């Protein structure tokens, strides 16, 4: 179909498409096609097909089965961020991080849920979950884990250091991805139930929104794009308010097999009536840039520290920042920058931050722990 008279631009566009590395087809689409005849026919409503479906942008907390981990580089690693030998630039991933909740003995906060959709059962009644034993009526596995975790009274006591992209508590039945970490979804659910806006200012939430299409959307995948403008905190607050005003939201479990048939559960979560009032005073800052924590390289806490410190160091320039990316690699020294590379800062190197100021170019920082305090140093960077 290539025309010999094709102009250079057409050839360039065609070549670009030819060279584009297209992502593999998600396994869920093959599953969908395979299941079409077994669960529905064109005379039955197709919406009842129990396939994994990403919720529309703006809805909150839909568990997903996507390869979130491949969005970022390598596997997550956990290290003591404040101890000797922590996260130096030459330290590679040393261990895959468990999606274990933060080990905090949190108080319990009862909440209400109902099982809306599950295989072979009728929708369940509304239950008040006061103890983990109350979760026993849910399908075993992800559902009961999620249910028990949400009992913790704060989202901070639930979320893990590798969330939101941590590995799932139980492997998904498909091979298309790592699946969601139950702690991430439970933490989000707790914040939603309470109308706790503080989760919106966490780098985990901001990263999720930045690279996803919304909090409720599928986990970000390799190839995700940033849709500018992204204002993750404002988006998060709007989502929390919407759920609070609606009084409920749904959570979908990762798919699993029952008698060889792929299925999944949908759980209705009921928002605390006081959530609307608690969210009334919450607001996003004037500058609310896209945030990207390189999850294969940094823990949540490390990313938060680096981003916070970089924002302070940016000063008045912060108003122009469109994106902030935090990395666990010495990026400036490996990129096309002013030569020679600056010497590494003293102390224990922690990570780098690159700020995209749009027309104002890029600003980069190295972050190091000096005397137990994080210090950021501006370094030349010219992509």
């Amino acid at each position, binding site marked *: *179909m290539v025309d010999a008279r094709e*102009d250079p*631009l*057409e050839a360039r*566009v*065609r070549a*670009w*498409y030819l060279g*584009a590395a*297209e*992502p593999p*087809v*998600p396994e*869920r*689409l*093959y599953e*969908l*096609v*395979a299941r*079409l*005849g077994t669960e529905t*026919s*064109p005379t039955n409503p*197709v*919406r009842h*097909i129990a396939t994994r*479906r*990403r919720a529309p942008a703006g809805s909150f907390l839909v568990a997903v089965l996507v390869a979130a981990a491949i*969005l*970022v*580089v390598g596997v997550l690693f956990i290290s003591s961020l404040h101890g000797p030998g922590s996260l130096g630039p030459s330290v590679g991933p040393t261990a895959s991080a468990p999606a274990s909740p933060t080990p905090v003995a949190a108080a319990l906060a009862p909440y209400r849920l109902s099982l809306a959709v599950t295989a072979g059962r009728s929708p369940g009644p509304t239950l008040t979950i006061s103890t983990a034993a109350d979760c026993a009526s849910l399908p075993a596995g992800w559902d009961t884990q999620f249910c028990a975790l949400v009992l913790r009274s704060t989202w901070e006591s639930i979320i893990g250091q590798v969330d939101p992209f941590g590995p799932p508590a139980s492997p998904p039945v498909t091979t298309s991805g790592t699946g969601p970490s139950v702690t991430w979804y439970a933490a989000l659910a707790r914040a939603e139930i309470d109308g706790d806006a503080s989760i919106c200012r966490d780098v985990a939430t901001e*990263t999720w929104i*930045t*690279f*996803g*299409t919304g909090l409720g*959307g*599928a986990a*970000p*995948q*390799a*190839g*995700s*794009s*940033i*849709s*500018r*403008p992204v204002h993750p905190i404002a988006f998060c607050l709007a989502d929390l308010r919407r759920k609070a005003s609606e009084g409920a939201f749904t959570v979908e479990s990762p798919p699993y097999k029952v008698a060889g048939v792929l299925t999944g559960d949908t759980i209705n979560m009921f928002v605390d009536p006081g959530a609307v009032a608690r969210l009334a005073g919450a607001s996003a800052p004037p500058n609310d840039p896209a945030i*990207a924590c*390189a999850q*294969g390289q940094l823990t949540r806490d490390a990313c938060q520290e680096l981003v916070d410190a970089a924002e302070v160091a940016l000063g008045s320039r912060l108003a122009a920042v469109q994106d902030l*990316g935090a*990395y666990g*690699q010495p*990026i400036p020294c*490996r*990129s*096309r920058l002013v030569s020679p590379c600056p010497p590494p800062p003293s102390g224990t190197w922690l990570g780098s931050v*690159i700020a995209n100021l749009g027309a104002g170019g890029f600003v980069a920082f190295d972050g190091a722990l000096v005397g137990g305090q994080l210090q950021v140093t501006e370094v030349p960077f010219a*992509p």
Partner: protein
Amino acid sequence: MAGSAGGAKEWPEREAAFKSLVGARLNRAYGLAWHLLGDRSDAEDACQAAILAAWSAWPRLQDQDRFDAWFDRILVNTCLEHLRRRARRPQVALADEPGIPGRDALAASLEHDVMSRALAGLNPEQRVTVVLRFWADLTTEAIAERLGIPPGTVRSRLHYALDALRVELDREDGHG
């Protein structure tokens, strides 16, 4: 099932045919949606919606030889709806990874972004036309059939889309 093509007896065969036809085209369908939408999750959603829509409409497709154009049209319309909804927010495609592992990858991603940004700047109709022409390698007539517009309109859209791309790429390349 009233009014459907084929009777109840034929349904299992038609069902199998549908699954076979769609299954064999999933790779292309997902690629098309991904190029149109620039986002894996959105592409997956669009494909799923298109498959389900096609499944519902399948009994009404009389000529299976027209499956490709028919299914493409459903998918493209699904993607167009998505793009039009999204048009309120300008899209800028960035590198695949938020991490920047090294110089080469960074340079490659930036070069990738030049074209990505230029394509993202097209309006939905232009973008669809460009993707069908240069990615799917379809003729003007085949594009027209899929979009339900005259071939002349396809040519016009391509012309304006390429003009817009040229301006944007010149600007990005520092010549504008």
